[in-house]
């Protein structure tokens, strides 16, 4: 007697369809799982047996073989427990094959027959491509996001058998999900994406003064320019960075899905803000390992922080404190907007389209070499400067020194411009950039710059002067032009870029000399 049930396993952030075949025959009683199961998957045998028995269902005292096809693909995790149990019930005739036709199953079994959640329900459901799908209660939201199959969910194995036999109705989805998700319709359509208050993002109006810092946040959001904020401790670098999310345009549905897929695959709850279209904000600590940041791991290939930040902001506070290999490993994802992770048995490509915002102190003690306040030695300052030079810093279009706010600014009651106002300018600027055929100005390739960023004669003269005095390199020039384009877009100017935008771009530019950096500066 043979039965087969559809399910899926996770590889990176993608699901792969898996057919669970169960064969029950006469012979010495035994249970074998073949088809490259990992340890958690192989243990399914004991969970399935206990769950069946405690649900009052029969466990065949015969020879049982479970094949997970395609057999060359490694199966990870416990999500195949439920399809194995269902396949077994089909094979021994407890269930009718017609009841599970074109239905997929995902879920881990508890020894008492409870159906538990697994990471990656969203990509798994998307991969099965059946007309109906049974998922654990906690995975209902993710499954409905896919928007294809009819989503069903039950709490226990015995409930499932009753529902499949038609003895009891399927429980209402709303009764299974936490109260905050009651908006989800019975058919699973549209739910979760609407009617949710976005989690509160701090508003830009809390930032007092900081003309340059605010401009940098606005430009970074509008043009997708990576940003480094440097300044002494307490100058509000983190405060500014946290507010970028609030001025970014809301995510379109496919980007919400992509970001949710990564969170799902990482086994994290879907962030409410992202469900409401708010870009994600991830701020890993500098003790994070390369694997935590990029993703990986020996069997599961869990997505890392940069993938969790996809379509949103990755904030690296204390950038120089990140170990060099970790920092340097960011270069490829920054360039390609995906991260490739290769292992001996599998290689995956995870999304990593994030806006990088970094913060750093100007020197190890934070006071930036200022006489009296700074306690760093010359050698320390030099080491620090050297640690930061190099290819990663080259990826930042904006490098802004943030000043410590003055006392009267902190006490002033006048507020700065609100995020909403800035966000509308950002959205308008992005629309201009899209009308030229680029999602953001940061992604305009060098060979198109002449055509896309035309300069007024005064603006051109300003740049030529700096090129002549080798204050600006060719690469620096490209960056300035992209940022100047964004500044002009923010003003709603589509024509040639004016001198003021170029002067501001120069003020926001990276790689300006520090006092101690350049001994031959006078010559």
């Amino acid at each position, binding site marked *: 007697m043979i039965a087969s049930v559809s399910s899926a396993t996770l590889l990176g952030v993608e699901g792969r369809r898996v057919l669970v075949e169960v064969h029950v025959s006469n012979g010495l009683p035994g249970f074998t799982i073949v088809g490259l199961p990992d340890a958690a998957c192989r243990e399914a045998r004991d969970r399935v047996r206990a769950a069946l028995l405690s649900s009052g269902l029969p466990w065949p005292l015969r020879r049982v073989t479970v094949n997970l096809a395609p057999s060359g693909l490694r199966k990870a995790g416990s999500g195949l427990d439920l399809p194995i149990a269902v396949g077994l019930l089909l094979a021994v005739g407890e269930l009718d094959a017609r009841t599970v036709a074109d239905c997929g199953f995902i879920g881990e079994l508890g020894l008492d027959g409870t159906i538990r959640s697994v990471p990656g329900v969203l990509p798994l459901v998307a991969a099965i491509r059946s007309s109906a799908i049974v998922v654990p209660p906690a995975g209902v939201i993710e499954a409905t996001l896919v928007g294809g199959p009819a989503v069903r969910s039950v709490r226990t194995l015995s409930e499932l058998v009753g529902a499949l036999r038609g003895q009891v109705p399927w429980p209402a989805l709303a009764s299974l999900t936490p109260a905050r998700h009651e908006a989800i319709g019975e058919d699973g359509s549209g739910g979760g994406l609407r009617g949710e208050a976005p989690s509160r993002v701090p508003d830009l109006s809390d930032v007092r*003064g*900081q*003309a*340059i*810092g605010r*401009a940098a946040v606005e430009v970074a959001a509008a043009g997708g320019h990576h940003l480094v904020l*440097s*300044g002494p401790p307490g100058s509000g670098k983190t405060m500014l960075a946290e507010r970028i999310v609030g001025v970014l345009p809301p995510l379109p549905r496919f980007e919400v899905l992509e970001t949710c897929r990564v969170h799902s695959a990482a086994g994290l709850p879907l962030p409410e803000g992202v469900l409401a279209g708010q870009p994600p904000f991830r701020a890993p600590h500098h003790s994070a390992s390369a694997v935590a940041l990029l993703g990986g791991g020996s069997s599961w290939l869990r997505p890392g922080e940069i993938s969790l930040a996809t379509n949103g902001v990755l904030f690296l506070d204390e950038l120089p404190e990140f170990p060099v290999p970790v920092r340097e490993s960011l270069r490829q994802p920054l360039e390609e907007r995906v991260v490739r992770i290769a292992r001996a048995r599998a290689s995956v490509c995870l999304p990593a389209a994030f806006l990088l915002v970094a913060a750093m102190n*100007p020197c190890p003690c934070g006071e*930036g*070499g*200022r*006489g*009296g306040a*700074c306690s*760093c*030695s*010359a050698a320390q*300052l*030099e080491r620090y400067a050297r640690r930061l030079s190099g290819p990663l810093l080259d990826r930042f279009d904006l490098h802004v*020194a943030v*000043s410590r706010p*003055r006392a009267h*600014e902190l006490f002033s009651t006048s507020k700065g411009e609100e995020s909403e106002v800035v966000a509308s300018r950002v959205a308008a600027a992005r629309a201009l950039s899209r009308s030229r055929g680029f999602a953001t100005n940061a992604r305009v390739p060098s060979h198109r710059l002449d055509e896309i960023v035309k300069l007024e004669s005064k603006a051109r003269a*300003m740049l030529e*002067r700096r090129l002549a005095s080798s204050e600006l390199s060719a690469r620096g020039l490209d960056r300035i032009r992209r940022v100047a384009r964004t500044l002009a877009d923010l003003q709603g100017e589509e024509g040639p870029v004016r*001198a*003021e*935008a170029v*002067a*501001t771009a*120069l*003020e926001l530019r990276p790689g*300006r*000399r*520090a*006092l*101690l*950096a*350049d*001994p*031959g*500066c*006078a*010559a």
Partner: protein
Amino acid sequence: MSPPLSARSSDLPDNAYAAAISALPDMTPMRLLRLLRDRAGGEVYERLLAGDAGLAELLVGDAVLHLGRERSVRLAAARELVRWWSSELAGAPASKIWGELRSAGATVVRYGDGSYPSKLGRLEFPPELLYVHGDLHFAEAPTVAIVGTRRATHYGIGVAEELGAELAARGACIVSGLALGIDAAAHAGALARRREDAGPLAVVGGGLDVVYPERSRSLWARVRSTGAVTSEAPLGARPLGWRFPLRNRIIAGLSDVIVVVESSRQGGSMHTAEAGNGIGVPVLAVPGSIRSAQSEGTNWLISQGGAHLALDVEDVLAAVALVAGPLALRLFEPEVRGARPGVRGARPGVRGARPGVRGARPGVRDRPDRLRREEAERLLAARSTTERAVYELLGDEEIHVDVICERTSLQLGQVVMALDRLAEAGLAMSYASGWVRA
């Protein structure tokens, strides 16, 4: 025991043997002095090669050699050292060392040679051997050491550059250490206004082929090609910490006057000042804010009588005139010959020194900073009110654009435009964390 005849060849000058000895591992300037003093390089070389125990007697007094222990222990250590050197010399003979020196373009000057800087004779322990890139004879002209901290402020950098330029334009030889900060600024200034008959002089801590710090490479090359870079350390020697106080004594020894521009209390420039005071070289210090850590050392020197005040180039010239005698006359020649236009066009006041005017009006000092102020006022008259308002806020310390926006109540765009025009006119300069007056 007679040395093998093959140990010395007639094609090698005697300094080649001295160089080979100085390049031995664990050789220090003091040990070299003990070994070589009043002896021919070749002779010591042969005795070392032969493991002559008599040489150990010379080394017994060496400070690092178990000082304080009984003589027999130290003598044993010295013999051990000589044995080790003997085997090392066999691996790196004089001919090899000399070849390396030649291919590196370096020369060796030994105490007593005609080209050995005569001023170094004032030192208690003059360097026995100097490695030289370039031409040391510039040291015979009036020499002024301009030294200071690596962590200089804009103020210090500006003053060092100005002094370097002013003095170099008059034909003085600027001596410094090629460190970042004050040292580099002094030489950069000197190179910008160099006279054809004078050149800068740098004394470095490591070997001549070990450029340190790396960022000074271009400055190093320019000093070498227009003047000289010299060191007591053999080729390949790392610039280790213990070499710098010794290096500083050479800077002091080479100078007629020492000017400390900025230094903390513990800075290496304090050693230079101390060494200068020890051999009677006048030390001048540039005063600074009592709140600036970088002026703590210079202010302390002045208050303790360890240095005279240096308020401008005139003070330095007066000090040079006192010690250098007739040689210093060239510094007061009315015409500045061969002066090249200053590279720092941004500092109009520094250009065109006016010595003639000075001579004519004693008491009224045409100080460079006053000239600069006048020039700035002239330039400012042509600027818009916005630019003038922004300029008023600039000073020696970096000021952040946010602060300018706030104090002037101008929009960011207006401020950056004004700053750009000021920079174009040479009135402002931008740094990583703010703007300063040029």
